[in-house]
């Protein structure tokens, strides 16, 4: 039995099919990302699970119960929003304790539990501050603590990292992963950022135009994309001519031909970008003028390579 | 439940609209129908409607005089306000940001001194010191500027906050523009909406103000209306309606201009003149 299951959930707004026969099952304790461009239906799916949006058809199973007709406040799903959405008039502790308060948990128990939750996200010192007095990253960790305080069946995260700075983003991302593992809470994570999805998920569900393109582990989705959309959306990819067709090869799976070696493709170097351990070399192919990038290990690059030089490219043999 | 939740807002709005429209319709009937209420019935409901009363009033030289007084006072009030408040607000934002709170609080002072109290104080002071000042119609100008100060400051303040003034001034200066040129060619065009907004509100306030004008015995438009109520009631009510319609048009124009570069409004920048 799955922890959370969408069965044939469909939703349209006017003429737009936001979600089409969406079916996925989350195992207990699993972290699944819904990944796709904006408007792909990922947020709609999350909001239907939370009860903020009604679905046209289909059911949502929590364990073995269908909760599709249950109002949002009876679903016991913790939700974290992109905009943090802490209650601005309550201090941090009262924010975290809010879910317990509306459930009628007595004051001292509430206080103790809120303290524990703040310990969990390592913000125990900030209990008396107001939301506007702490940073965005701290606010989002408080939002996590608030959502988890009521021990929800499922944790729903709606682009929780999008409003944060790059460095804080990684911190909060790791925090989410840690909480998911430590507490064993089933988590659904909506994002448009493939790096985020790759680094955090047990499984990724890639979506486009309201339809699931592929569900699989990050490795699976990256190495064996089921569709051209997945190949292009997850990681970067080159499209190269081979005979009458084209092949899709990731930049790191291309190698520069050594001197005298027969090259499958030849082209002129247009740009060389050093990114630490790797160097990205942009090439325009001679035969069809398509742009290709090669990700080569910096230490193995021939020093003679320069912009304008003609070089050979081969597919890496594995 | 769902049905009730859907119905009650509509029902309530309908009742509210009746409350707000009924007095205006009654006013229109009185102004434009020459039948006393007592003898009004089903058969003569649509008879004897005429705008003669209003036309008579509009041709009245006294009316024309009061209109010209009110328009002149409105014009100079807007002028005084702009020359006073635009430099003040810009100065606060550019040179003395610490004084912003003080200036803001001072601009709320006109709410603390009701017009009736202000006019009593004015005659208690200026009448003995500068009687020539109170004798002129234009003595209304500074006091009307005071009445319009709260929303004028707010409108400019919000407009300037939205501008990122410093970057704008920096950019203009780095291109070699002089202070005056920055003011004229960069700041004023960008504050257009705020300025028009404040000016229109000021005009409505001036055209409707009665308290100060009546106690200083100035023959402005509202004073004319109050007096015509006795001599030519139909014309006075017709005139009242006409002014109402014109005010509505002014307000709609303001809101259209405001929509054009719409910003979110909050409690801090509501523009309401409080002079009923």
């Amino acid at each position, binding site marked *: 039995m799955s922890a959370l299951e969408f069965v044939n959930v469909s939703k349209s707004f006017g003429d737009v099919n936001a979600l089409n026969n969406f079916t996925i099952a989350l195992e207990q304790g699993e972290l699944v990302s819904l990944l796709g461009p904006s408007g792909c239906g990922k947020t709609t799916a999350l909001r239907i699970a*939370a009860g903020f949006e009604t679905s046209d058809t289909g059911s949502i199973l929590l364990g073995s119960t269908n909760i599709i007709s249950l109002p949002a*406040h009876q679903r016991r*799903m913790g939700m974290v929003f992109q905009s943090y959405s802490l209650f*601005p008039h309550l201090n941090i502790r009262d924010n975290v304790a*809010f879910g317990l308060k*509306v459930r009628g948990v007595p004051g001292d128990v509430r206080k103790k539990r809120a303290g524990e939750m703040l310990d969990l996200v390592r913000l125990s010192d900030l209990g008396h501050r*107001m939301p*506007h007095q702490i940073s965005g990253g701290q606010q989002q960790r408080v939002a996590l603590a*608030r959502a988890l305080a*009521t021990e929800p069946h499922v944790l729903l995260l709606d682009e929780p990292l999008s409003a944060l700075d790059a460095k804080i983003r990684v911190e909060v991302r790791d925090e989410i992963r840690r909480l998911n593992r430590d507490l064993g809470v089933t988590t659904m994570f909506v994002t448009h950022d493939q790096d985020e999805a790759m680094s955090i998920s047990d499984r990724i569900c890639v979506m486009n135009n309201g339809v699931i393109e592929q569900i699989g582990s990050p490795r699976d989705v990256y190495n064996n994309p089921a569709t051209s959309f997945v190949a292009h959306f997850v990681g970067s990819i080159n499209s190269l001519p081979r005979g009458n067709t084209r092949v899709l090869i990731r930049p790191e799976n291309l190698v520069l031909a050594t001197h005298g070696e027969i090259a499958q493709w030849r082209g002129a170097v247009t740009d060389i970008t050093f990114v630490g351990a790797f160097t990205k070399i942009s090439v325009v192919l001679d035969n069809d003028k398509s742009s290709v990038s090669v990700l080569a290990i910096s230490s193995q690059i021939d020093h003679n390579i320069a912009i304008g030089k003609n070089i050979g490219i081969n597919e890496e043999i594995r | 439940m769902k049905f009730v939740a859907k119905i009650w*807002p509509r029902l*309530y*709005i309908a009742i509210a609209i009746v409350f*707000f429209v009924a*007095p205006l319709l*009654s006013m229109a009937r*009185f102004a434009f129908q020459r039948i006393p*209420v*007592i003898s*009004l019935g089903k058969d003569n409901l649509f008879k004897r409607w005429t705008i003669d009363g209003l036309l008579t009033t509009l041709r009245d030289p006294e009316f024309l005089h009061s209109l010209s007084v009110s328009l002149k006072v409105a014009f100079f009030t807007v002028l005084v306000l702009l020359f006073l408040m635009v430099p*003040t607000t810009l*100065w*606060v934002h*550019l*040179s003395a940001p610490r*004084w912003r709170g003080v200036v803001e*609080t*001072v601009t*709320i*002072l*006109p*709410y*603390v001194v*009701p*017009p*009736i*109290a*202000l006019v*009593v*104080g004015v005659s*208690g*002071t*200026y009448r003995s010191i500068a009687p020539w000042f109170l004798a002129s119609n234009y003595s209304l100008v500074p006091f009307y500027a005071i009445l319009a100060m709260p929303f004028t400051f707010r409108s400019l303040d919000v407009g300037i906050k939205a501008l990122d003034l*410093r970057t704008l001034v920096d950019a203009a*200066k780095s291109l070699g523009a002089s*202070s005056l040129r920055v003011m004229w060619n960069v700041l004023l065009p960008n504050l257009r909406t705020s300025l028009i907004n404040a000016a229109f509100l000021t005009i409505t306030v001036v055209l*409707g103000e009665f308290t100060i004008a009546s106690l200083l015995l100035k023959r402005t438009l509202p004073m004319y*209306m109050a007096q015509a109520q006795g001599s030519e009631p139909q014309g006075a009510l017709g005139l009242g*309606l006409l002014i*109402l319609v014109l*005010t*509505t048009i002014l*307000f709609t124009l303001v*809101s259209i201009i405001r*929509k054009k570069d719409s910003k979110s409004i909050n*409690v801090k920048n509501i523009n*309401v003149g*409080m*002079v*009923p």
Partner: protein
Amino acid sequence: MALTGISSLGQSDPKGGSHTRTPLQRFQLPVKFKPIGLIPFFGFVGLFLVWPAISLFRLAIQPTKNSDISAMREAITGDYLDSFIYTIKLSLLTALLGVLLGSLLAASVLRIERPRWFRNFMTSFAGVAANLGGIPLAFAFIAALGTQGLITKMIDYFGINLSDAGFRISNFAGITIVYLYFQIPLMFLIMVPAFNGLRASWSEAAASLGAAPWQYWRYVGLPLLTPALLGGFLLLFSNAFSAYATAYALSSGGARLVPVQIRFFLQGNTITGKDNLGYALAAWMIIIMLITMTGYLFVRRRAEKWQQ
């Protein structure tokens, strides 16, 4: 504070031109004393608002020729005290009703999503109605609810005689109804942005935490609206308290409202014997407004803290 940000731009000039004043610095720092540019503003307010207002108090506490007690004391005794109580009661009632009915109207209008123009229309109309006071408003209500009014006549047709029921457009109930005509729209204009300021994600967050709709309103919605409600109440109170023209035109100068009472002591050019009393009544009005507006500023400053 803000200045350092700007002038540092001039100083960071890599060519070492920091000794010559850049045009920017000339514009920024013409003088050492920053508030100098505010002198015209403070001078204007001082001359045309503060001086007359303060003079009121000076005139009110001057010894009176033909009375033993000071005018300030006399202005809050007997009939004058009744006038103040009457005016405050009217202002409180119309403010309370205005807060209630105006907030309801805002909530109702915001619920209606189509047609799109409806919301804008209501906001424009409220803008007009909130500013509509004085003579035209009094005219409209006399034409509707006066003894010869159209609505009076219509109600009479159904067998209810307003006049016999003790209703007059110039008595307490009458003035209350007339004042609501500008109080409700004013509150509407205050509450529309306040309701819009409630983020959808707050109610969703509350729901996901298990709060039923009433619990959301009790613990989140209402506390967040409190500054607007309270501030609105104080604004509405001061609005009604200082209103003069409407009351004057409604009752042709006979009402018991303080503003209309003040007029008796200042009939145009002629100063009556007890003109100190007029000053004292006005002074007391300012004191009451000072308390009200201080409360308003306090509420707003507090709200601004977490509204940023």
